């Protein structure tokens, strides 16, 4: 049992941190992840329990459905002992309990938005507001054009004033980096206020 120790010691794993990249299909989540990830985005499938309250048919009873969603993810090795994971998840399903698994322990989230299809991101925005996960709304500038100005997006999504709305280009590494830095700024703020003596 102890003899194997000499052959190849298992490296000490890095501390993992994660940021959730949410948004509807085709808004550029995977592009976002791929633009900054050290590795080409990987895909994993997960079962999610979606609780559909029936937006279209409010009279119907709440029913639970289990759907398989594909998550594309990547990672950025900050240094040998710290690794940032980026999980890209579709946001148009009603978020169910399994989403807690995703946002539990996340530093924050970035909701990627196509300004011409804003309603795709409502469930994600609702969810992150409910669970109190710091998030930003990042409007992907398709072909360099936003489609709507940021104030219009903020108004249409009815998000709170403290939630940043930024424009970014999902294909551009530094643009994605800057958007993530806005998320991390919120995360830092949360961590600091969590530690403040007011709370103790």
């Amino acid at each position, binding site marked *: *049992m*102890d*003899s*194997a*120790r000499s*052959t*190849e*010691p*298992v*490296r*000490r*794993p*890095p*501390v*993992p*941190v*994660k940021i959730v990249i949410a948004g509807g299909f085709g808004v550029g989540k995977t592009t976002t992840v791929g633009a*900054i990830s050290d590795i080409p985005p*990987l*895909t*994993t*499938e*997960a*079962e999610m329990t979606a609780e559909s309250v029936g937006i279209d048919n409010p009279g119907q009873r709440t029913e639970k459905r*289990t759907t*398989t969603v594909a*998550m594309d*993810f990547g*990672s*950025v090795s*900050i*240094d040998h002992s*710290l690794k*940032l*994971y980026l*999980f890209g998840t579709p946001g148009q399903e009603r978020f169910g309990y399994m989403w807690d*698994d*995703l946002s*539990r*322990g*996340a*530093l924050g989230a970035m909701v990627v938005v196509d300004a011409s299809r804003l309603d795709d991101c409502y469930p994600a925005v609702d969810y992150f507001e409910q669970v109190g996960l710091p998030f930003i709304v990042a409007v992907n500038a398709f072909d360099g054009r936003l489609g709507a100005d940021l104030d219009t997006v903020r108004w249409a999504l009815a998000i709170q004033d403290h939630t940043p709305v930024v424009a970014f280009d999902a294909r551009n*590494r*530094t643009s994605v*980096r800057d958007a*993530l*830095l806005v998320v*991390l*700024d919120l*995360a*830092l703020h*949360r*961590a*600091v206020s*969590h*530690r403040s003596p007011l709370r103790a």
Partner: protein
Amino acid sequence: MSIPPEGGGAPRIRPFLSGAPARPPAPSQHVEPVPQAGQAALRPFILTGGRVNADSADIKLETQVTARPGAPPHLVAAMAPESQHILHLCQSPLSVAEISARLHLHLGVIKILVADLHHAGYLDLHAFETDPVFDPDTILRVINGLRAIH
């Protein structure tokens, strides 16, 4: 001399040539279950002996997993191929999400297999003392690390 129409004479082919709506493909003569979403959702759980709820609740997507050195080869060889594959991958630290992606198996299945291998003493799951979410120093390191990206 006229050639009698094949198969008894009814003009069965004509309508299709004149642009009538094509008949749907012949109803399945051999009944074969169509592999749909249900199959993908069902099959992987056979690997876990039908359990869908191991105490894998504490295993997160980003949980780091390493193989514990010194597993007796004959015991490893007797394991399901998927478990062997996990042990092989985890010679270096790997996240649960990466294991799932590399093995092309659902996350839920991987969590259960990883939990089992952990309980059997083959895998280490790494937990960290401080929750990075509330650790400003860790977050600052991430910020500085990202700023260095150009």
